[in-house]
């Protein structure tokens, strides 16, 4: 009952006209950038962070959440019509979606993606609303050692699930953690890794790293292989609406996709890739028309799209209740909270219930707005896809530098932005995932603080991490997750040698 009461309270906040406006701007911007190839929700939030720091915190956070949800919706449009998924989470959607579009069934593909996202988003947000207070109750009892262990789990899963090589994922993570060391140490006030440069005393900004890696890095990467002709937009032929048959074949995949997406997103397991591909392969097995898979089966769009959106809501569970980001977008949203001096976690639920529940309520509203906005405006979104590439990326770079120029227009900060950009380009070139680096930068200092707090309580005895059941279990999970890929690949090699 408490949950319903808090939620009702949240709706009274979220339904204020100004909050509705922020939500609308958020979903609109989110969809627009989600549609544009090359920018995902993480980058959009990062671009907007510096320019919103004078706005009202609740409104901005609602807007960021709207961008997150909108970006997920928009990504499916690009995946279906362009066969060029804007972010890794829509890779699975592109498989069947683009085939459907080529077969002249682009309309129903977009519709099942949008309605599936709506259904999944709704169920997952309800899940979030009921799971969060319960998790907060548990989290209150967490000691610093438990938080530390939880962050170790997040480190491992984030770097092992993004990209195909744990070695490259961990390298990216450690580079981020190294950047997290830069600046003044909070406990002793000593400068670390600043080399006497005063601009570095405040540390490396998460937004500078994220914008550099995602925007500048992506632009350089796309430019470097420019001669490859861009994919053609597949025009939507025929009706936008789904037939009775389409509905009948879509509803079960929607629900199954949600069942995959929400729990996996909510666990500190990182990313939407795993649930979307799980959903895709499950639908392929369960489908009554398996011969259609590979030629445009509607189940292959409905399931992964639902999983994608449900996992987006799922990642908000650890973010809001524990302050633990498990994806790049969540990491940047955490930076958004911190910019207003807010620290997500059990305390925030107690201190600012209006803000937290207003945010959760606004997710419901964002979902409704998206499904209303998305289908009628599909023509507008398609036109966005037709922006010439040179202008698109020139514009992205202008927006990328704009935030830094507004807040901190020093040559050092700009140099860092472009340095990170070039690094992001090289990392893309050699297939290093960039998301773990962002997560490492933001979680590294948090993990350090928790570890030091834990060891101060235990008077320097590291066994405290293993003596507490929760932290010991979590560290065990982290260890298994770290070692498993190496052992598995060893086994595979062994098998290959035997054959």
């Amino acid at each position, binding site marked *: 009952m408490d949950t319903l009461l808090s939620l009702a309270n949240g709706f009274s906040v979220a339904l204020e006209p100004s909050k509705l406006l922020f939500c609308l701007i958020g979903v609109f911007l989110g969809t627009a950038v989600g549609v544009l190839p090359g920018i995902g929700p993480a980058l959009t939030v990062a671009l907007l962070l510096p320019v919103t720091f004078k706005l009202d915190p609740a409104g901005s956070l609602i807007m960021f959440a709207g961008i997150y949800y909108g970006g997920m919706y928009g990504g499916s449009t690009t995946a279906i019509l362009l066969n060029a998924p804007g972010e890794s989470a829509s890779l699975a959607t592109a498989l069947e979606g683009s085939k459907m579009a080529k077969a002249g069934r682009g309309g129903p593909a977009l519709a099942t993606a949008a309605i599936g996202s709506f259904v999944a988003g709704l169920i997952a947000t309800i899940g979030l609303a009921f799971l969060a207070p319960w998790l907060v109750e548990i989290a209150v009892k967490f000691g610093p050692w438990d938080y530390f262990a939880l962050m170790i789990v997040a480190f491992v899963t984030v770097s092992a699930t993004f990209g195909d090589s744990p070695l490259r994922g961990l390298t990216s993570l450690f580079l981020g953690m190294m950047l997290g060391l830069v600046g003044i140490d909070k406990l*002793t006030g000593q400068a670390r890794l600043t080399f006497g440069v005063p601009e570095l005393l405040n540390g490396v900004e998460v937004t500078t790293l994220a914008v550099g890696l995602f925007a500048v890095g992506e632009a350089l990467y796309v430019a470097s292989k*420019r001669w490859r002709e861009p994919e053609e937009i597949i025009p939507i032929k025929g009706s936008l609406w789904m037939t009775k048959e389409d509905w009948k074949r879509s509803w079960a995949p929607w629900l199954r996709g949600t069942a995959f997406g929400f729990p996996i997103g909510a666990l500190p397991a990182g990313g939407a890739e795993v649930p979307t591909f799980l959903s895709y392969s499950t639908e392929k097995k369960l489908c009554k028309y398996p011969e259609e898979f590979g030629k445009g089966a509607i189940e292959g769009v409905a399931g992964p799209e639902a999983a994608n959106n449900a996992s987006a809501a799922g990642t908000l569970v650890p973010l809001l209740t524990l302050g633990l980001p498990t994806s790049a977008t969540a990491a940047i949203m955490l930076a958004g909270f911190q910019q207003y001096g807010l620290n997500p976690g059990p305390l925030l639920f107690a201190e600012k219930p209006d803000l937290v529940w207003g945010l959760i309520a606004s997710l419901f509203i964002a979902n409704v707005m998206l499904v209303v906005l998305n289908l009628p405006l599909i023509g507008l979104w398609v036109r966005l896809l037709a922006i010439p590439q040179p202008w698109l*990326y*020139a514009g992205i*770079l202008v927006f990328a530098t704009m935030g830094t*120029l507004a807040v901190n227009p020093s*040559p050092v900060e700009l140099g860092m932005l*472009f340095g990170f950009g070039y690094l992001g380009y090289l990392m893309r070139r*050699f297939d290093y995932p960039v998301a773990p680096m962002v997560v490492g930068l933001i979680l*590294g200092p948090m993990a350090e603080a928790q570890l030091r707090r834990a060891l101060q309580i235990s008077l320097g005895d590291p066994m405290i991490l293993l003596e507490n059941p929760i932290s010991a279990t979590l560290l065990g999970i982290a260890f298994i997750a770290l070692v498993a890929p190496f052992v598995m690949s060893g086994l595979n090699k062994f098998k290959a040698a035997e054959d």
Partner: protein
Amino acid sequence: MSRTIDRPALIVGFLLLAVAAIVAFDASRQTITSNYGVGPTAMPYVVCAGMVLLGLAHLFVAFRDGLPKPEAADGRALLWIVGGLVGLIACIALGGGFIIATAILFSCTARGFGRDALLVDIAIGLVLGTAIYLLFLKLLTLSLPTGPLEALLS
């Protein structure tokens, strides 16, 4: 499987070892250390150890499969964009202001992506820069770096 050494992996390996050395050197110069063994130097040493391991792993990989082989890159396109970024920093540092800096970045990037209309793009960049400048000033009350063009506007 070829037995040649993968140069990129080798370079990344050595770079990681070098960064680890810098982190360790910086940590060794810290003067205040905390009472219970975990002062400000503990985390740097952990990061350093991780980087040494990853660096060695890269050296190992260099003699095996190596890193994924990238496609050839279009160097001229990259040069245009990097030139635009450097031009932007120079313009800001020399007091040229936001609008001119934006025009430089916009036109150079568009050129890097293969457009052959530098003057048109400079004009678009100037208009875009002016619009953003006014939007920031009036709506968000944030001031962007000013130069001669911005002085004309206010």
